[in-house]
């Protein structure tokens, strides 16, 4: 369908040109267009491009007065409606890509589905791609897996304000798209072999992710159509395990239950024993980045304490809680830390006390006499499911640092030991600005940076997110091949880290609506706007019950039982 012509009054170049829209037609930003020109040397060359600005104006007027006269019907002017086009691709009939300008007057059409694929290089991705949303013309957009899986690049970075259908939703959607296409992906990448892929999602907000395995009963027809258009099924995640921290304030022999509200069934508890902390060298993560940077000697104290505890545990000493560690250390501190300044010793102990308040509940005794073998371990075994949701949203910042740091460290260690990047592990981590802030240095920042820089070769792919990428260490953001941007302030978008957006997209970020994302990937020269559907899985209890997947009575009775237990425990304490 003809939509306009290439303008000759403005320079047309191989990289950008202008088109005037016919007065019976209209074009909007993000539309994809095609035009053809013929050249003696190259024959017919097709130009594919994206509209990145649309302009209307009264041509030939010099003053506002004339425009006013025009509005009064006293002055004629040529109303022109024209668009700026960013050329994404030129394609001659022999498949080459000559860099020639389109000829003024050439007819311009809207791209059809096939031409859209060519315009955005989706054809070059062959089978190495997954759908990542729908373009403005409802054609699917794809992510180049070579740049996701660590072949040519890896990692995704998502920026944007918090809200409905934003960063985590998009990260989850990408995982859904990936796991839905896993069979095809394994064919396209023989090196994956028979290994599965796993994902660990750190849930930092609400309990939205606790129903990934339940279908969304309230999914609209429109959203269903969007999944269909992308060739994706409409169903929940198939292989999911949920992990939540233990409920705090429990006695030594009380039951360890996951600290979740809307769902208990199928939720595992994660926790660490003192032995695990010491053996895996996790003591660092008990301290907040600020504490570590404030007292430089603290590093030495932690090192010495770890060594000493390690030795003691090997010799048979066992600790049931943080408190027991603290008491033991306090008693012997002067012997253990001879070389450490007294001030530092005090600081170390003080901070350990503070850590106990916040992290103490994450520590479990080594073995509980009445528990059977299956539930004995509170560690996270990500190999047991494709998607592992680790709920940390109720934890304090210090406990979050500890949990994220400890889990990431153990994954890195495990991957280093196996020596192969397969199976792949996706890490979905929001609030990167907390874990890897632009200023300061900390063990948790080191580990995030380590994944960003070395993760590709280890098969650890970071899908990181933050409200403001300008507050995250540049090395973490710049290592992400795929960058995504949702609604944010224009002032934030002015930071150089968003250079990939280009000047016009920087202005429009604040107008993005829920479900809209600007996606940049290395082999597509233009950042494209995509729309992704509401989740096919439930994000809250109410969305899941109507499908009959969860027996309502069962669910309620679970919660009731749990509450009863709690009450009983409380009563016991009082006695």
């Amino acid at each position, binding site marked *: 369908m003809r939509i306009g012509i290439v303008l000759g009054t403005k320079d047309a170049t191989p990289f950008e040109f202008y088109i005037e829209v016919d007065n019976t037609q209209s074009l909007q930003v993000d539309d994809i267009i095609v035009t053809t020109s013929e050249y003696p040397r190259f024959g017919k060359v097709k130009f594919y491009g994206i509209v990145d600005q649309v302009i209307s104006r009264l041509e*030939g007027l010099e*003053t506002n*007065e*004339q425009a006013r*006269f*025009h509005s*009064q*019907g*006293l*002055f*004629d*002017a040529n109303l022109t409606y024209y668009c700026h086009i960013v050329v994404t691709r030129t394609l001659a009939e022999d498949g080459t890509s000559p860099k020639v300008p389109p000829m003024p007057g050439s007819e311009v059409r809207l791209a059809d589905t096939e031409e859209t694929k060519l315009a955005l290089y989706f054809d070059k991705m062959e089978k190495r791609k997954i759908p990542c949303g729908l373009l403005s013309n409802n054609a699917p957009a794809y992510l180049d897996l070579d740049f996701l899986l660590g072949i040519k690049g890896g990692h995704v970075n998502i920026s944007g304000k918090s809200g409905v259908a934003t960063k985590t939703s998009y990260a989850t959607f990408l995982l859904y798209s990936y796991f839905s296409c896993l069979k095809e992906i394994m064919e396209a990448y023989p090196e994956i072999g028979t290994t599965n892929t796993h994902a660990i999602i750190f849930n930092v907000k609400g309990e939205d992710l606790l129903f990934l395995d339940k279908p969304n009963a309230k999914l609209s027809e429109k959203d269903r159509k969007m999944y269909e258009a992308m060739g994706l099924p409409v169903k929940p995640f198939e292989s999911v395990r949920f992990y939540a921290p233990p409920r705090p304030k429990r006695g030594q022999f009380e039951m360890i239950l996951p600290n979740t509200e809307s769902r208990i069934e199928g939720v595992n508890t994660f926790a660490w024993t003192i032995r695990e902390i010491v053996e895996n060298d996790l003591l660092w993560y008990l301290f907040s980045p600020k504490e570590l940077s404030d007292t430089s000697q603290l590093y030495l104290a932690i090192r010495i304490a770890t060594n000493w505890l390690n030795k003691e545990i090997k010799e048979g000493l066992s600790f049931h809680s943080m408190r027991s560690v603290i008491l033991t250390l306090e008693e012997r501190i002067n012997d253990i830390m001879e070389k450490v300044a007294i001030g530092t010793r005090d600081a170390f102990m003080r901070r350990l006390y503070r850590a106990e308040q916040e992290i103490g509940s994450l520590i479990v005794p080594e073995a509980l006499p009445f528990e059977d073998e299956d539930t004995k371990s509170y560690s996270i075994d990500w190999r047991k499911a494709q998607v592992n949701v680790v709920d940390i949203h109720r934890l304090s910042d210090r406990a979050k640092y500890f949990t994220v740091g400890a889990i990431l460290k153990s994954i890195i260690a495990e991957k280093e030991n196996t020596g192969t990047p397969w199976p792949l592990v996706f890490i979905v981590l929001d609030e990167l600005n907390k874990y890897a802030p632009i200023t300061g240095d900390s063990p948790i920042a080191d580990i995030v940076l380590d994944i960003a820089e070395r993760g590709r070769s280890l098969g650890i792919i970071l899908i990181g997110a933050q409200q403001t990428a300008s507050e995250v260490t540049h090395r973490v953001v710049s290592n992400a091949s795929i960058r995504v941007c949702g609604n944010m302030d224009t002032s934030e978008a002015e930071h150089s880290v968003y250079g990939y957006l280009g000047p016009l997209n920087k202005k429009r970020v604040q107008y993005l609506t829920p479900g809209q994302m600007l996606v940049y990937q290395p082999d597509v020269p233009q950042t494209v706007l995509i729309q992704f559907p509401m989740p096919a899985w439930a994000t809250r209890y109410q969305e899941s019950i109507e499908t009959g997947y969860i027996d309502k009575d069962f669910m309620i009775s679970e919660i009731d039982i749990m509450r009863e237990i709690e009450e009983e425990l409380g009563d016991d304490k009082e006695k």
Partner: protein
Amino acid sequence: MSEVLAIDLIKDLQVYQIWWDDSTNEPVDIKEDAPPINIETDVEVKGKWFPIRTDRVDYRKKIVVVDGVRRIDAHLILGKTGKSALLGEFVVGAFSLEEGRVIERINECVIILPPGIHMRESLIIGKAEYLPICAVNATEEGIYSSFIQRMRERERELAYKFSKEDYIVIADGPLQVPFSEVGVTLGFIKSIRRSYLYGDYWNVVLGLKRGERTPIFIIRTSEDLPPKYSWYLRLKEPKYFESPFFGLVRLEAPFNLKIEYVQDLAQFSGGFLPYIISSSTLSSRAPENLVPLESLERRLRAMFHPINHIRATLRGMIAQAYKEV
């Protein structure tokens, strides 16, 4: 027609020399405005004149403004006779006040030849096709007035066409002969260079306030031509330092209309023309130049063929014509 043929035409005409003078492109209208031989002042008001007030009306009616613009592309010196010809282009068009836009634009390129010199075909230079027209006489003035006349005819045709479509036409400049073929057309004369009235009558003209008009009078210019109705209208009052002619225009209406209808037209003209005048930032001929007229003229000028291209091509063609000689 091919370029070869155009070159042959140039050879036939013995075009040797060309020159142009852009300063003569917009000459004053005075030459076209023939002196009156008789004025009748008692057609509307008998006896002592007084200014007539008009009430404001909406201009968004079936009204068109018709005007033309012209350009001299080149003067040609033909052969050894020293006779000259003129290459010119004009565009006539109409602005509809109802639609608020230019609704018609017609351009024509002409080559005005002195009497006795003929051309077989039009001369094509670039994309412009110059139609041969024979001048009334061989003088430079005669050639030029033939050019103007040609444009005026086209303007009148356009005015007539619209008046037949029930438009009220406001044509720039005096009414063109024959008046019988202009339909309901008002001539709009911006430049007051000749006084048609004297004494008390003229004092009434100079004393007009904004939106006021004089009574209608009749102008006869010659025995052969039909007379025309006319009245003065004040579009804007002069400030203390401005000439009393400032903001003063004269309108003409064909004599074949009934006086009652002309009275209506006169009232009507006063009811909207003062409200669509241009400002000095818009037009160098403000305020008499109406906004739609200024707009129309600009849009018409945009239709001219690119002058530098025409002149360069013509030079090239002349050089080509005498290459072998």
